[in-house]
């Protein structure tokens, strides 16, 4: 069964179609790439999937449930997590607090328990602290747990975004240009990390990326978007040789 099924998805902003008739199917455990030139509508697709935008048309089915029009936090409850292209960390909070906030939906104690400092609070906080620390450790951020997120270097901020998204315990992880601004070595490390977390957490991953080496290196299938439409999809090898893609996207770069 498909984990995510997108049918005939369209979104227009005051008449302008940003995404039109998008069809997409992702099976459990897959690692899919979403590529396309600037302004092709990739991030809009993410925003539609995560509930930031309400689709104009079409349906999104996730784990067999229709989820059009659900607010983002409910999408998160259902098991979809994302990172942001323009990093959106909680800058004035510590690194570990960033992760704890993402873990909030799994915490067991209620507001009153927190205010009255009942035993449940200490238990819950201890659990959170431990889990958050584990997530940080995966991304090598545990030594900076008590620094402010805004003071981290760029590459670490990107990794913290992924760590934070993982802390919501998703089954589908959407990564929006995770390697943007990274050098080749960092990108290489990131590639391995993405592969590793997919296995470790039993995840399905959809990623937007500009860095071709990353996409071609890790993705099993790729969707190519141009002017809000899917112009091609298939394995990396198929995409590389697809004339439409070359024309729209790779061709541009080749010049």
């Amino acid at each position: 069964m498909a984990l995510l099924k997108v049918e005939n998805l369209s979104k227009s902003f005051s008449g302008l179609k940003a995404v039109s008739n998008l069809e997409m199917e992702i099976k459990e455990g897959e690692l899919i790439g979403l590529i396309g030139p600037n302004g092709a509508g990739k991030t809009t697709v993410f925003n539609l999937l995560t509930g930031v935008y309400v689709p104009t048309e079409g349906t999104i089915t996730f784990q067999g449930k229709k989820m059009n029009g659900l607010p983002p936090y409910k999408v998160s409850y259902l098991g979809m997590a994302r990172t942001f292209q323009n990093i959106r960390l909680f800058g004035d909070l510590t690194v570990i607090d960033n992760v704890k906030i993402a873990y909030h939906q799994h915490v067991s104690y209620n507001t009153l328990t927190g205010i009255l400092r009942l035993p449940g609070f200490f238990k819950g906080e201890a659990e959170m602290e431990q889990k958050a620390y584990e997530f940080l450790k995966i991304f090598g951020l545990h030594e900076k747990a008590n620094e402010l997120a805004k003071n981290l270097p760029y590459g670490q901020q990107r990794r913290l975004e992924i760590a934070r998204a993982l802390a919501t315990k998703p089954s589908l992880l959407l990564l929006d240009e995770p390697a943007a601004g990274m050098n080749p070595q960092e990108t290489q490390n990131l590639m391995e990390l993405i592969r590793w977390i997919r296995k470790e957490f039993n995840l399905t991953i959809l990623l937007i990326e500009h860095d071709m080496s990353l996409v071609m290196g890790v993705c099993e299938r790729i969707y190519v978007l141009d002017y809000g439409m899917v112009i091609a999809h298939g394995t990396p090898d198929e995409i590389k040789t697809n004339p439409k893609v070359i024309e729209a996207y790779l061709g541009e770069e080749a010049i």
Partner: protein
Amino acid sequence: MGSAGDLILQQLINGISLGSIYALIALGYTMVYGIIQLINFAHGDVMMVGAYIGWFCTTVLKFSFLPALIVAMFLSAVLGVIIERIAYKPLRNATRLAALITAIGMSFFLEYGGMLIVTPQTRTFPSVFPQTVYTFGNVAFKYGDIVIVITTVILMLLLQFIVKYTKTGKAMRAVSYDKDAANLMGINVNNTISATFALGSALAAAAGVLIGVYFNTIDPLMGIMPGLKAFIAAVLGGIGIIPGAMLGGLAMGLIESIVSGIGYSTWRDAAAFIILIVVLLIKPNGLLGKNIREKV
């Protein structure tokens, strides 16, 4: 006995001349907000200072209406620039709340500093207009009503001209759109912001003199309520948008006289707030405001 039609017409006239004054004050609020996103709570008090300058010119220096208006506008413009340079400029990169608190402090300073200098007593303007009353059937309006509306219209046209066609006006629009980009394009951002304060304060002073001349009385706390109402007017129209301030001001004036007109004068101020809130709930950026979407 006036017919219902006359009654409505009279209330509309009342509303328009009151609304014109709100609009003049609201323009200053909206311009300053548009350029540095500051709710300048001291704006109503600049209006008060303008009214006092006008009063000084007409009673002590025996000026007539127009020279007094111009002197008041000019001196208030200078005051506006001084306030901006001393109190707001150091906070341009601080949090907006810090600037807001400074504006509140400045408002108190003008009110109570003014009270120390001119004492809290009400001052009366001499009659600078003929006290002619024009009546058509049961509808009456004064020479002063005409002056208010005409002055307001002229000042608004002048403002539109300045903002649209002069270099300073274009710079203002550029700075309000993107301060850094404007700076890179060689626009002197500091001077442009000062010019905005000068223009806004001059308009407020004009409103102050008009209030003084029309209603005859001024006092150091006269700026608080018109200031607050003009702010509501600016938000109602969509803060930062010049036509919005005009529309909002007129709407406020009309709302007030209609609510009083149907016999709920007690609830007039509450009605203004309720309408504001309802409008905001339907159009969160005001009547003419564009819905600006945050890029995700």
